[in-house]
């Protein structure tokens, strides 16, 4: 990896974190309607995974999807606009935090239904196969979604048809409030790969280089027509399931421990310092650029107009059927 590539990864991770922290702040100030799920602590998985994808590869994301979207190339300003419910948001204010998509970037959408992305990525994989291209589809999901039937149906189908799909689990230890130690039979998502006769990998999901090299292997495998893989990135979310979550299911000490010892940005920061890529001044410079981007994005989004009431009646059908 070149120095530029490493810096780019680092900048992306900083961007995801800054976006999420700002979103949390705006939410607490009642500036964002609805509810939001932040991915702070999971930046190595989102950025590492998307960093080995091409522009025309597909990603199916989750309710905790801001990081995936930024990592796949979405613009923070249009994302903030969507979070605010503005007309210039990615979905013209019809989707909100849980439903951001940009089909031109191969982002098939965040999904408000846990495990909703599996069948969609199977369809994308089948489409790739029928169109005979060498694209790849990635579906992000959590440890909770690994217990849905959609996961098992999709893994089975992807395997029998050898679809170019990478299943990327972000095991952050909790499905909403329920610990995976309680809800996940066998204690491992990756182990389930063997039942479907596909490669299964576990990574330190807070180490972006490990995530990257593992996903890279799986993507190459998929592009060569060898079929799907399942990767379990072991990670952690610092914030609650949603903003405002009282988090009775875990201790502050546990969160602190992850922050101090397993922070993906700190880990990569230290690596970049040691290998000479990063200096104090470059780091400061990068953080300044990211902070400016986020501030500017929020300013843009806040100034944008809300959609018109009648816009609620648009975009339902490609060929409209409203009764006259």
């Amino acid at each position, binding site marked *: 990896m070149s120095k530029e590539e490493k810096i780019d990864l680092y900048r992306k991770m900083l961007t995801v974190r800054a976006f999420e922290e700002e979103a949390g702040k705006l939410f607490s100030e009642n500036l964002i309607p609805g509810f939001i799920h932040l991915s702070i602590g999971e930046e190595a998985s989102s950025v590492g995974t998307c960093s080995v994808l091409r522009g025309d590869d597909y990603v199916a994301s989750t309710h905790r999807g801001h990081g995936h979207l930024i990592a796949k190339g979405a613009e923070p300003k249009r994302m903030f606009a969507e979070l605010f419910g503005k007309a210039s948001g990615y979905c*013209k204010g*019809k989707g909100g935090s849980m439903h951001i*998509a940009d089909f031109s970037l191969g982002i098939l959408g965040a999904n*408000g*239904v846990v495990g909703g992305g599996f*069948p969609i990525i199977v369809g994308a994989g089948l*489409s790739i196969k*029928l169109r005979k291209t060498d694209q790849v589809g990635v579906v992000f999901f959590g440890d909770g979604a690994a217990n849905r039937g959609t996961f098992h149906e999709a893994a089975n189908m992807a395997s029998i048809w050898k679809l170019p799909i990478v299943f990327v689990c972000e095991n952050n230890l909790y499905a909403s409030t329920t610990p995976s130690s309680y809800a996940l039979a066998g204690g491992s998502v990756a182990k389930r790969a063997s039942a479907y006769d596909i490669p299964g990998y576990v990574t330190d999901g807070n180490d972006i280089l490990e995530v990257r090299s593992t996903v890279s292997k799986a993507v190459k495998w998929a592009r060569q027509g060898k079929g799907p893989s399942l990767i379990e990135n072991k990670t952690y979310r610092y914030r609650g399931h949603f903003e405002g979550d009282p988090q009775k299911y875990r201790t502050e000490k546990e969160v602190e421990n992850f922050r101090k010892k397993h922070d993906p940005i700190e880990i990569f920061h230290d690596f970049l310092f040691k290998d000479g890529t990063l200096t104090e001044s470059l780091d400061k410079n990068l953080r300044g650029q990211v902070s400016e981007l986020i501030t500017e994005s929020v300013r843009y989004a806040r100034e944008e107009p809300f959609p018109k009431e009648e816009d609620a009646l648009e975009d*339902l059908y*490609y060929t409209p059927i409203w009764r006259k």
Partner: protein
Amino acid sequence: MTERILSCSEALAEALAEEMERDESIFILGEDITAHDGIFGQFKGLHKKFPDRVIDSPISETCLIGAGVGAALTGMRPLVDMHFADFFTTAMDEIVNQAAKIRYMFGGQAKIPLVIWAPDGGGLSAAAQHSQSLESWFIHTPGLKVIVPSEPSDVKGLIKTAIRDDDPIIFFQHKRLFSQTGNVPEGEYLIPLGKGEIKREGNDVTIITYSRMAYLSLEAAEQLDRQGISAEVVDLRTLKPLDFKLITESIKKTFHAIIVHEACLTGGFGAEIAARIGEELFDYLDAPVLRIGAKDTPIPFSPALENFVLPQAENIVEGVKKVLNS
């Protein structure tokens, strides 16, 4: 246009073959559709003709329908076979929360040219889990279109239109009508969505119906004719979009309306049509609108019970007389 006599099944297979020939992005996904050409033989000859584009799926209805959504989002035009309409329950999230929502909630970015083909209806002693008429669920879900053809030519004309449409469509075909025959035009034949058809003209009463009940309504109209009552049979063919103009024109002529569907009465689509007639055509009615549907039970197995639960031609005859005498 040359016409031949075909069954509904043959009309479907012919239309699909023509469409698949025309457009390489069309494919069919479903259970048991290669070795047996579909469990009702509805895809006869298609696998042989298009071996790569008629694909057998494991029994995974959730992922089957969801894969249709994903393929439609990424440049293909899938037709997914639901096997039995009753199995919709195993894929409701994929239909209601994904297919119907994706275009809207993503601000119109996506198009979803997906047809879900679903054999429905009773009358085969298939009992409670293989006999239902579930169209109301999908009419009640914004984002979907719902098609319910009766005769073979309508099957052909509407499936071709459905395949070319860029929105998710639920295409019901009644199981009792697969072997029903009729004249079908050769080659290019398209029926626009939202266009019903008068299957029999009459002056005294309008029978608004669709799917298999169109045939039973015609049977009833024959009986009524012998008794001096002239019934007009309006076959809606598509329920969403709905041809309310055709309903309006007919009621303005007959001043009497009865709605007949096989789905159970309560909460059925007849209620919606009756409400709209009340709202928009009250002044043209000489009698209250009557609805006929199945009794509000699951469909029982024994023919003795099933025939009682499902509407029969006699019920329609009685219903018409009731409307005319009120």
